[in-house]
């Protein structure tokens, strides 16, 4: 495949070209309660060319290998044509890489029998369904095997085998007219062994769904909260992480001014990190879609803005160093600068100390996904507990949090010691509205529990 791709971009009449071809085979076994609802096999095979010519930038994606010559031509012609409008595209230097990457795992899901995958999923679904008041559950086991080959005109040749397996479940509990629904994901890594022996956590998720039936709605207003690891991860992804994606900063003078490196965003305790090589995390990978190796990047260090996430393209515009964050969902999209695994680094405070610092407020748990609109963010919490005089009280639900990113980062007043990465994840990004939306599964979040003052909570 390397030779095929190299040959295709040779003599492409561009200043720079790269070619990627990937073959992804995905299988999902979905269950309705304890019945197999579907076994669905998906093949995504296709490639993408990107080219720079005269400073213009364009790409072409295709499914049939024999279409590659046309794709190279389309990309080259369009790059040259667009240069009339925008001739600013150049690449920041990056090492030429020749590498083959294979996933690290104790148990390769490809070696596990279909029957065993079904049996494991059924064990978990059985635990969920025998929980009183749980009346239905939909589960799924998913595995994907990707072989991805990348070459560029500078001489890089990279092949990566990427494996992923996970079990997801959505449960519904009912009491009269009242229903509550919660979901969870376990695994989300190459290693099948991470799916085994998770019974206790599955039971806890089911119990939580049932407990939500009797939880009180949260009181809307402005409160001081402890966010658990899951929620603090979602918060830092949504509220801050997206602003660190430098491709959006290039042409936005006000954002460039706002996000000047060295600017104070939070207390000395606040360190925010994006780390694509975090072992075993949901957003972990080795090389991005420009063939740049991922790394650990301090976005905020000791409370001050320290760095950004870059592609080679955006690094060249902003005098940064490529961070290996230029990623597309698959061959059907242009890459964008995306987070890998983002989190706040742990500090020394115990969970009890955080609650004591809150006094009266809420302990909010579980990110329910969220979105940002520039300086505004919102996301849901799965559930929470009142904190009264530093002690956890009754359970609450129907929680949404919103606010201004910069105010809220400044309002992080304490950072805990209970660091944990979340399993599962995913992220949507658009640069021009809904039709431009690109959903990316491999995006991880995590962190310690944190205290945030003056959070707007809506019911």
């Amino acid at each position, binding site marked *: 495949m390397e030779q095929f791709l190299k040959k295709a971009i040779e003599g492409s009449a561009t200043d720079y070209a790269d070619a990627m071809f990937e073959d992804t085979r995905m299988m999902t076994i979905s269950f309705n309660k304890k019945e197999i609802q579907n076994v669905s096999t998906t093949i995504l095979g296709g490639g993408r060319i990107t080219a720079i010519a005269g400073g213009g930038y364009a790409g072409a*994606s295709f*499914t*049939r290998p024999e279409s590659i010559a046309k794709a190279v031509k389309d990309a080259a012609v369009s790059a040259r044509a667009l240069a009339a*409008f925008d001739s600013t595209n150049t690449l920041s230097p990056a090492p030429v890489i020749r590498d083959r990457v294979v996933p690290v795992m104790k148990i390769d899901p490809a070696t596990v029998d279909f029957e065993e995958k079904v049996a494991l999923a059924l064990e978990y679904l059985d635990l969920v369904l025998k929980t009183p008041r749980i009346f239905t559950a939909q589960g799924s086991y998913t595995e994907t095997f990707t072989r991805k080959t990348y070459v560029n005109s500078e001489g890089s040749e990279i092949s990566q085998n990427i494996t992923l397996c996970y079990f997801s479940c959505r449960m519904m509990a009912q009491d009269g007219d009242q229903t509550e629904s919660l979901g969870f994901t376990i695994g989300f890594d190459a290693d099948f062994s991470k799916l085994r022996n998770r019974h206790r956590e599955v039971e806890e998720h089911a119990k939580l769904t049932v407990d939500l039936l009797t939880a009180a709605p949260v009181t809307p207003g402005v409160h001081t909260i402890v966010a658990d690891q899951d929620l603090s991860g979602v918060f830092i992804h949504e509220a801050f992480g*997206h*602003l660190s994606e430098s491709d959006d900063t290039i042409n936005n003078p006000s*954002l460039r001014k706002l996000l000047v490196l060295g600017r104070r965003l939070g207390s000395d305790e606040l360190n925010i990190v994006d780390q694509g090589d975090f072992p075993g995390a949901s957003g972990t990978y080795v090389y991005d879609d420009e063939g740049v190796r991922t790394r650990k990047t301090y976005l905020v260090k000791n409370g001050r803005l320290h760095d950004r996430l870059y592609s080679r393209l955006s690094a060249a515009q902003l005098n940064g160093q490529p961070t290996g964050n230029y990623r597309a969902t698959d061959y059907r999209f242009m890459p964008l600068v995306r987070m890998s695994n983002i989190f706040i680094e742990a500090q020394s405070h115990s969970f009890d100390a955080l609650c004591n610092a809150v006094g009266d407020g809420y302990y909010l748990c579980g990110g329910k*996904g969220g979105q940002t609109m520039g300086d505004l963010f*919102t996301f849901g919490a799965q559930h929470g507990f009142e904190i009264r005089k530093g002690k956890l009280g009754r359970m609450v639900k129907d929680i949404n949090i*919103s606010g201004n990113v910069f105010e809220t980062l400044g309002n992080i007043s304490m950072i805990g010691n209970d660091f944990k990465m979340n399993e599962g994840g995913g992220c949507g990004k658009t640069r021009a509205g809904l039709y431009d939306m690109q959903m990316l599964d491999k995006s991880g979040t995590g962190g310690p529990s944190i205290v945030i003052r003056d959070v707007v909570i809506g019911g």
Partner: protein
Amino acid sequence: MEKLLKRVAEKVDQAEVYHVRKQSSPVNFYNWRQADVLHRNHDEVSLRVIKNGRIGVVKGSASDDLDWFVSSALRAAEVGPEVSFRFPSESSAGCGGRICDPELIDMKPEQMVKDAVAIYDSIRPQAPALLLNLYLDNERTDVTILNTSGKNESYTKTQYTVSLLSMYENSKEGINKEITSCRYFRFPDDVIEELIAENALSARHIRVPTRKMPVLFRSSSTWSLLYRILEGANGANKVRSVTPLKDKIDTPIFGDQITLLDDPTMDWAPGSTPFDDEGVPTRTKVIVDKGVFRNFIYDLNFGSKSGTGSTGNGIKRSMWTRGIEVNPNPRFNNLVMQPGELTVSEMIGMMDEGIIVNDVIGFHSGNILQGQYSMNVGIGFYVKNGVIAGRAVDTMIAGNIYEDFHRITGLGKTLAVNPIAYSPDILIDGVSVSGTGEL
């Protein structure tokens, strides 16, 4: 594709091949200065087989490796769920509306660059400092479906999309105006003017008080509410007995201003189609008639389970997918909410104090099936004494469509398309608003 169907047909009881070819060239412009384009040339296929009453599905990019498709589908069918439907044979002749514009078929990508430059040129004299990204796409989709019941039908759909995103100071996002249609169009001047005006009005930030007040959902945001109806009227949720509408056929669920049709015959509507993704001919259905719930929507599978049959709503994509990525699910083809008689300014004038919502963030929050929503006002405005006072910041709205749609006090007179429906602007009284302003 005939080859694939032929190869698999003798090994199974029933088979279906669904083929989609998509060609497009989305062009992005970033704030006057940068641009890129991605040519897309994608062949996608799904193969469904039924053997011994069990179904197996394979889908994805088309490959010449037909054996892999066949063997994967057969293996999936061995353990697949039991189904009791037949793939359809009836012709869809006469179904659907006009969805293929020859002008778009012949259009070169250069035209999109011209259109983008024209948009920039029309904005520059009025608002030279406005940060503005553009997205334009001309997509051609060729669909063919074949099955062992004898179906062999095709259609071609064109779709032109133009999206403008102006960005606020200190922000990556701001006012978004997007239009999509199966017919070529020039982006309307009045929408550009509205974008410029709304951007200017946003300069003043208002901290909104926490109380119940009228909320005007612009048609660009109503999809977040109508998504709840999609889940409620989804036949899969009826079969699973999880929708609150399960016993509500011919019962009022909303105020009598609300009429919702699933209309696959509407000319140039991106959701219009002669047959659904399972080959079932489509037809117009009343979902809600003057507030009264009339019909669930079904695909082949859930239609057979409910005993009513498919309503021509088996769709093989979800809101965020582009290709054939999900198994068929009941979805609206082209949901249309009947308009009212009011202009935007008339409805704003009706509000003593209220919120205008252009875009929401967090549409998935709240118990969707039960009709609940709890969303942040992404882009919105605060109205005082019938006049827009400024941008509503840190504002959340919450409610339940099965209650709120009884308190509609105004419907806009024009329809605009959003990801779920053609919808008018909707003015609802007494929505729960929470913010950080004075109490």
